[in-house]
């Protein structure tokens, strides 16, 4: 095992973490501030990817397509909030889970009616190959772009949440909703805006990941579980928590998949190692979650005091 491989795998972990962050950031905003479990978050991610695919085909430009998909998905998300989700805020979490699960099924079949079961979003030609980071370490150019976009989104969100007035209201809503209401904050409008922002982040995630992942009906459910793990580890409602949680999950998962089977091979019989290695690697992030929750039941950076 060379140090180049270790460097490459660390980069992979960082990259996978930032992939997850793009989706988890929106989820933690909605869950933390609105106290709303939105399982249909994954459906917005899917819609973002399908819309981006259509817009990229229409405009012939990857950048233009992605930039169009973001406001389109945000509008869809806000329409969803105003028409359906708003009625669910007063209900308990179980009712929200049931209703938004129904939304997943409905949006999946609607997507199939409009687009078919899958769509193509090819990688922009200039980024489709690898670049030589170091001699002997070629790395996918597109994955480097994902790292850049993930970091940019993190910085932008940090600035929005900590330095602006809207961000202050958002933080107030997250840490004590009743008090914010009592102070005269227009929670209805704030919630619609937050939900729109969450949907926009979904679109960024969906459109940016589409060239690397399958754009198909049901793509949202798979990644949503990981996004939930991320925000539970990070602390629900905290953007900083989502970033740290996502990086932890990305790195633990990648390192686990890459090196655990090898490590097991050193200590156990090859047969036991080949069976146990992948099994432990696949639960590594859940072990991480269990350990974090044991020491910090509210997650690493709890938003509520």
């Amino acid at each position, binding site marked *: *095992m*060379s140090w180049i*491989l270790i460097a*490459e*795998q660390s980069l*992979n*972990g960082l*990259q*996978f973490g930032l*992939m997850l962050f793009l989706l988890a950031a929106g989820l933690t905003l909605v869950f933390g501030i609105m106290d709303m479990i939105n399982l249909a978050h994954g459906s917005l991610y899917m819609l973002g990817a399908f819309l981006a695919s259509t817009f990229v085909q229409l405009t012939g430009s990857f950048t233009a397509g992605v930039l169009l998909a973001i406001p389109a998905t945000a509008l869809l998300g806000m329409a969803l909030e105003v028409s359906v989700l708003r009625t669910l805020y007063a209900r308990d979490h179980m009712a929200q889970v049931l209703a938004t699960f129904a939304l997943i099924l409905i949006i*999946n*079949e609607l997507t*199939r009616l409009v687009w078919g*079961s*899958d*769509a*193509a979003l*090819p*990688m922009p030609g200039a980024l*489709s*190959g*690898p670049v030589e980071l170091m001699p002997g370490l*070629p*790395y*996918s*150019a*597109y*994955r480097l772009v994902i790292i850049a976009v993930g970091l940019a989104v993190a910085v932008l969100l940090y600035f929005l949440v900590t330095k602006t007035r809207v961000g202050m209201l958002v933080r107030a809503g997250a840490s004590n909703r009743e008090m914010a209401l009592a102070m005269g904050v227009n929670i209805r409008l704030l919630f619609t805006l937050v939900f729109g922002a969450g949907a926009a982040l979904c679109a960024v995630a969906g459109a940016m990941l589409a*060239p*690397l*992942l*399958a*754009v*198909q*009906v*049901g*793509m949202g*459910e*798979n*990644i949503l579980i*990981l996004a939930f793990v991320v925000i539970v580890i990070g602390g629900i409602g905290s953007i900083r928590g989502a970033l740290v949680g996502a990086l932890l999950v990305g790195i633990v998962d*990648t*390192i686990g*998949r*890459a090196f655990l*089977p090898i490590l097991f091979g050193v200590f156990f019989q090859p047969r036991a190692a*080949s069976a146990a290695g*992948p*099994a432990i690697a*696949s639960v590594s992030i859940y072990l991480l979650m269990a350990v974090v929750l044991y020491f910090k039941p509210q997650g690493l950076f709890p938003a509520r005091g």
Partner: protein
Amino acid sequence: MKIKLLAAALLVLTANAQGADKVKIGFISTLSGPSAAIGVDIRDAFLLAVKTNGGKLGGLPAEVLVGDDQFKPDVGRQIAEKNVKVDKVNFLTGIVFSNIMLASVPIAFENKLIYVSPNAAPSPMAGKECSPYLFVASWPNDAYHEAAGQHATNRGYKSAYLIAPNYQAGKDSLTGFKRYYKGNVVAEVYTQLGQLDYAAELAQVRAAKPDALYIFLPGGMGINFIKQFVASGLSKDVPLIVPGFGDDQDIIRPVGEATLGLFDTAHWALDFDNAANKKFVAAFEKEYRRLPTVFAAQGWDTAMLIDAAVRDSKGKIEDVEAVRKAMRAAKFESVRGPFKFNRNQMPIQNYYLRVVAKDSQGRLVNKTIGTVFKDHGDAYVQDCKMK
């Protein structure tokens, strides 16, 4: 008076039973949810075959009851029970996935009803648990992987790196590959079911420098992998081999140009130069405005096999032994070319090497470039007690 009525009713019933006036088929498949693409292809081709036959199978008007198992074994089983007990169908067919098939078809076997499989053919049902009422119109579950292993051997690849999801079918597929691969297996990696990111595995492959890479990653996992494999630049150094369904039209559509030059092994291809296939491909494209996959070819052949069995049993479809005999003879023009049944009623057929290339209209399609196996059966037939 009453007795006369009863007698008349009986007469009608028995008359119906002797000269059947139509053939009823229970078609159960996965038609909704994320895994629906395969079932939809099989259904579309099956219904198209019936339509091209003038709505008839074996000369009798055909009624196809289409049911959606929603990718759930219990739902599949419920529909099968209704088809067998209430609808009194003559044949059952359509199921895509092995787990749903294993739950749903025993009810057919118990009632001496023939199940024709358009896709799944799990190894136990080829061997110890073979049934006189099971006919497989597709290929045994291992066959594509065996052919891929043979292809890697033929090419003289000294070392191969294998990746499959960590579940039973994943392990079976790599067992199939290794059965015919004579070189050195560098690593056998089992990944998570539904995995999204393969960067870690790709880095390991790059470090291992194998002569060939074989993956069995059905559905979205394969789409993820192929996109990322090409983006990583590995495609320039390591040839990737996949089973036939791993880069068929339903994968080519979402992945696009990245599939260009992929090798796979299958029992059928778009460009087969036989009359039945030309008719099928033209009809499918005209009706559905997309190119057929191997699954569609299997759906079409399933209908044609039932057509032949009904025809050759001279319409006596209540006589299950007569129908079985006619079906075993398999006197139909398969779109795959030569086809016959083994002792265990699994196919004996050829498997071919295909490569993704552009056709005359610039579309990405699979082109046949060689034969890997001739008249190939399966490894389990000796465990089947059936004569």
